């Protein structure tokens, strides 16, 4: 029983560390995209995955979604929903990268800035690892969640 408990506790702490990491990655990734939305729009267009009318809208909204979800993950508010959204984004990013790698298009992934070297299979692997981390967070994350810590106290008060 103790062993089981220890494993569970280990998972929850690992999930907490992963949560901070993924949250930080997405906050960092969003900053340059928010600042240089024109370049990010070109990156999205170069993937050739979304229709022309939606490219600029995505370039404006997507970085803010990353920032909001990353922030929620860090502070532990609605982290389950936030990590689910980030997992969805990573799944789409991975799919897009895979398709473009298969096409042989030598574009940068646009993950952090527009001045990146062309993406490779390593880029895809990295995104898949992040995707796995989000799923891990989704399953094991229990610690330092602001709602669980404060909401019941307020309700009973």
């Amino acid at each position: 029983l103790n062993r089981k408990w220890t494993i569970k506790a280990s998972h929850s702490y690992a999930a907490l560390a992963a949560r901070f990491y993924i949250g930080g990655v997405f906050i960092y990734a969003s900053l340059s995209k928010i600042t240089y939305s024109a370049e990010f729009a070109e990156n999205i267009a170069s993937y050739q995955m979304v229709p022309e009318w939606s490219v600029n809208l995505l370039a404006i909204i997507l970085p803010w979604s990353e920032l909001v979800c990353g922030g929620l993950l860090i502070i532990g508010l609605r982290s389950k929903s936030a990590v689910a959204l980030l997992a969805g984004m990573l799944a789409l990013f991975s799919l897009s990268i895979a398709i473009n790698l298969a096409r042989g298009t030598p574009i940068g992934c646009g993950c952090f800035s527009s001045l990146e070297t062309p993406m490779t299979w390593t880029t895809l692997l990295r995104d898949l690892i992040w995707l796995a981390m989000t799923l891990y967070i989704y399953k094991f994350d229990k610690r330092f969640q602001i709602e669980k810590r404060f909401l019941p106290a307020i309700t009973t008060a």
Partner: protein
Amino acid sequence: MATQISKHTFYLKALNELSGELSALVQPRKILETFLLMSMGPVGLRCGFAVVFDSGTFKGTLVCRGIETGVARRLESGWPAVYTHCAALFEGGSPDTAARLIQANDPRVEGNAWPEDITGIVVWKIDDQFAALFGIGTTLDRRPLETDEVELLLNSTVVLSGALARALNTQQIQTLNADLYRKKSELIRARDEADNARSNLQQTTEALKTAYRNIDLLEQAKYGLKALWERQVEQAGRVSRFDFLIIGLVSVVVGILFNHFSPNGIDLLPERFFHPAAPVIALPAAQALITKREAVIIDARPEVFFNQKRISGALNIPPAMFDIAYMIKLNDVDPDKPIVVYGRSFSRHYDEIVARRLVQRDHQNVSVLAGEVSDWESEGYAVEP
């Protein structure tokens, strides 16, 4: 005998006049004054007094006529004692309704207080409550009263008694009426107060009902909020569509606002949506112009795509690098020389963007190729590398 008849007629006439005068009066004082005036004259009395009073409380009205001021003053306070002495002479210590004259020379009254210049006092009861005294003074010629004169005076007291009874009854009726009116006013006031109180009670009841309704609403709101809060607590560890909606809304609103106010902001939709399309040139026509070196061919795609495969001789001028690339590669080109632009994808019409910018730089003959590099290659035209 004739003289006797004439005298009696005179007395009857006097009584009749007295009755007529007194019947018109309602104030006891006025009645007493008139009585003294009219009853003293026929028998030639020099002075007299009359009192009507409540036999229980000895409150009453005294009127004097012809009596010296000092005597009258003493009489004002002394008449109850006079009455008491006189009443003591009656059987049972109380006078009767029939008037009775008590003479000053009656041995039973000697030694008691007796008003000066009064030769006799008539005492009688008007009713169970009120009694009266009539003090008969001396005559003008100081002679004793004759029997028929005494009878006249006693008859006068009967008339007086009737007038006083009527006046006192009227006074009592007036008092009762006033009392009734006062009680009626009090009743009306009490009724008004009761109406006001009832109205206030109704208003208070309405206010209370409103307050209870408000309390109910507040209670419902409280339970609603509590339920919402508990639901939020319960959903804290779950994925919720509501969360997705909120995150999406925040991202859309903040993103659009930030983009609007940012110096690096971009159009929400591609700019070509708002401008007319550039003229299109068919592949063979373009090939003919290029072969004759009569036209410049421009690849508008990003450099990575240009480097992959391009139409032979094409210059790379992507929209993102347009100003620099134009300065380097097209600055010396004649504005009238035909320019053919190509390069578009599912996500971006680079050719349209570059064509528009060339027109803005005064190039008159700019057209967009009706196909991509792959189509060009399929037609068997030259591509590189």
